């Protein structure tokens, strides 16, 4: 074969082959070490594999809304804060399943809710990618395999570092440093927000029945395990809430009905009076550190 003859004639082939092979091997070794390192840091950050009694589950809204360290200090219990940016209702089902398998001592789950919780669109459509870091977990692995394409799945399976991004690396480092502080400083720009709402540039509420059913299913599973659920509404700014007020109120009614329907469910809302206090918001839905401290104190008072 011509190619094999060329290789035989190529005087540099042996040396170059050695260089390329060493490069590939070194890459995979670094990838493995880095991958394990980031994963362990993430487990610490999210509080997986701990003896936590309380777990916070939600997306960035809850992530920035509650200071887990303050809750731990005040209630003298361990708290897991498994909150991920952009997770929808069905992703949270996987997260709860993962939490329950990793942490056996959970008694209460504080589940972040908002008027957009049952909206199908808006949050990342490919949010299964959020679970790439935990491909080592058999259930997560099965879920990702089902959702992703063949090449996508095997790429992330074989090369560990492809499972992360800068956000996750940052979270992992914060896990090692035991740093859960809210870094979203600054206050919401209400003038800009009003302009955005005026031109229709805001996330619309589009409640889907199937999403309500998924939450109901999660509630039932937790009930069977005698785990209490707190549906927590960390405030979102009133300007945003009133953009589609009737749909907003419909969502709130769903949470109130869930509280009535299930004994182990409690709905706590901090919308009043906090949604009108603009200085506590970093943006329409996320609290700044000042807001986080205020709401955390309120939560501690309620669940003490």
């Amino acid at each position, binding site marked *: 074969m011509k*190619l094999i003859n*060329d*290789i035989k004639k190529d005087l540099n082939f042996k040396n170059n082959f050695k260089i*390329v092979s060493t*490069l590939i091997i070194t890459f995979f070794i670094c990838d493995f070490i880095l991958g394990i390192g980031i994963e362990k840091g993430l487990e610490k950050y999210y509080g997986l594999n701990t003896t936590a009694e309380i777990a916070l589950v939600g997306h960035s809204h809850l992530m920035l809304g509650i200071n887990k360290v303050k809750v731990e200090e005040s209630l003298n219990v361990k708290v897991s804060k498994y909150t991920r940016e952009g997770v929808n209702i069905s992703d949270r089902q996987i997260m709860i399943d993962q939490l329950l398998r990793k942490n056996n001592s959970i008694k209460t789950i504080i589940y972040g809710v908002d008027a957009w919780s049952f909206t199908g669109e808006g949050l990342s459509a490919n949010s299964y990618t959020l679970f790439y870091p935990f491909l080592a977990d058999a259930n997560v692995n099965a879920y990702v395999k089902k959702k992703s394409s063949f*090449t996508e799945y095997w790429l992330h399976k074989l090369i560990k*570092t*492809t499972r992360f991004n*800068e956000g996750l690396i940052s979270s992992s480092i914060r896990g090692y440093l035991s740093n859960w502080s809210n*870094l979203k400083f600054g206050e919401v720009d209400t003038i800009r927000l009003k302009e955005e709402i005026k031109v229709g540039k805001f996330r619309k509420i589009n409640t889907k029945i199937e999403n309500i059913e998924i939450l109901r299913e999660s509630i039932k599973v937790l009930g069977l395990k005698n785990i209490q659920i707190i549906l927590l509404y960390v405030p979102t700014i009133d300007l945003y809430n009133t953009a589609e007020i009737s749909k907003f109120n419909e969502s709130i009614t769903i949470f109130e009905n869930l509280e009535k329907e299930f004994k182990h469910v409690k709905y706590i809302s901090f919308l009043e009076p906090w949604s009108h206090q603009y200085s506590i918001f970093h943006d329409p839905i996320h609290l700044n550190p000042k807001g986080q401290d205020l709401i955390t104190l309120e939560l501690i008072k309620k669940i003490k």
Partner: protein
Amino acid sequence: MLFNSWEFILFFSGVFILYFSIPYKVRSLFLLIASYTFYMAWKWDYALIMIGVTFVNYFAGKEINKAIRKSHKQYWLFFALSFSLIPLIYFKYANFFIENVTVFTSYFELNNNISPLQLILPVGISFFTFQSLSYSLDVYNNKTTVENNFVNFAVFVAFFPQLVAGPIERSTNLLSQFKENHDFDSEKLVTGIQLFIWGLFKKVVIADRLSLYVDSVYGTPELHTGNTLTVATLFFAIQIYCDFSGYSDMAIGIARMLGFRLMQNFNLPYLASSIADFWKRWHISLSTWFADYLYIPLGGNRVKYIRWILNIFIVFLVSGFWHGAQWTFVIWGGLHALYYLFESWGDKFLKLISLNNIKNNTFYKVFKILVVFIIVCYAWVFFRSNSVTDAFLITEKIFTDWGSLYRGSSTVTFVLSIFLICLLFGVQLLQYFKIASIYFSKSKVYSSFQFAWYVMLLLGISTLGISSNAFIYFQF
């Protein structure tokens, strides 16, 4: 099929092994089949346009060569130019003309019922059209010999590494290489892979990350402050460079693995010390194309001063129009023409006041590099804006509305973006001072450092790579 996709890696691995395994005499045909497969993976029927352009220029070249009288040569050149440019004009500029005719007629309250055409621009049409035209023009100007082998000519037009976004090759460089016998060379394979990795890093780690911020800010400029728009413009300057030079690097790397030499398309353009210098460093294959086939035939600088100014404007405006059928691109080209002229007048003024020696002063050079970078960035505002109105709004805000800085959806990504820009400039400075290698030049960096650098690039791609964004220059 994007270079940064698994489909391409599989495709190229197959092409690479087969190319070096088959006899020399069938390799051009094999590359032709591979190139059309690559192109047709996107939209098969548009390959017919490329076939048409190839036939037109192949036969025009033969006829130009055969013709004895100049008028016959001109006739065949006109044939090649018009028939090659018809698809380009139709697909790229038809709607632009329709829109402008509509605006014009509505201004005079005339009835106009022409609605825009539903067209999809064939990928790379500007590139393969210009590449094949360069051949006919070179044959006409006796700069190249006529190609009698149709397969060689067809693969020259369709060569897949540089088919969809350049570099726009000349027949004098690339066509002859299809007649050479390329043997497998591990040195070329390794250096080709190295350049490919660097190009991929620039594309998926830097350009695609910056695009998140740029798209969000330029999508709604009215909602952002002047400093946010300034940062977005700076990010876009780096994004477009990393996107396009990344593609060129990958193209050159791929061709090198197969034993081909493509021309260098970028040479540290943001370290240019003048606008003239910038255009010798940015999209070199296009700027030299316009210099050779437009500027020089117009008379270049060997004409009356006023005519020279006109020539400069024509070249830059056409270059802007080549990039896209929008007034924003034309204004972008016009701005560069103005920069070029002002710079030439500035040089004359320095001479007049006997300060010409200042040009050798290091501080002056650094100052010029900064000034050129800033004005080039300003021109990018027009290139990136969705409309002329947006571009003027951004200009106004940049100079008047300095409020809070938007950091994008993630502060970590924002900080990382700045770090990556610093890293890029760090590498470019090492290349500028000839310490690090640029396009296969000798590197003075220890081989162990180079090794660690490529491991780091690969880890950067795997960890921070954002995939599947199409290349900006595909649309041109």
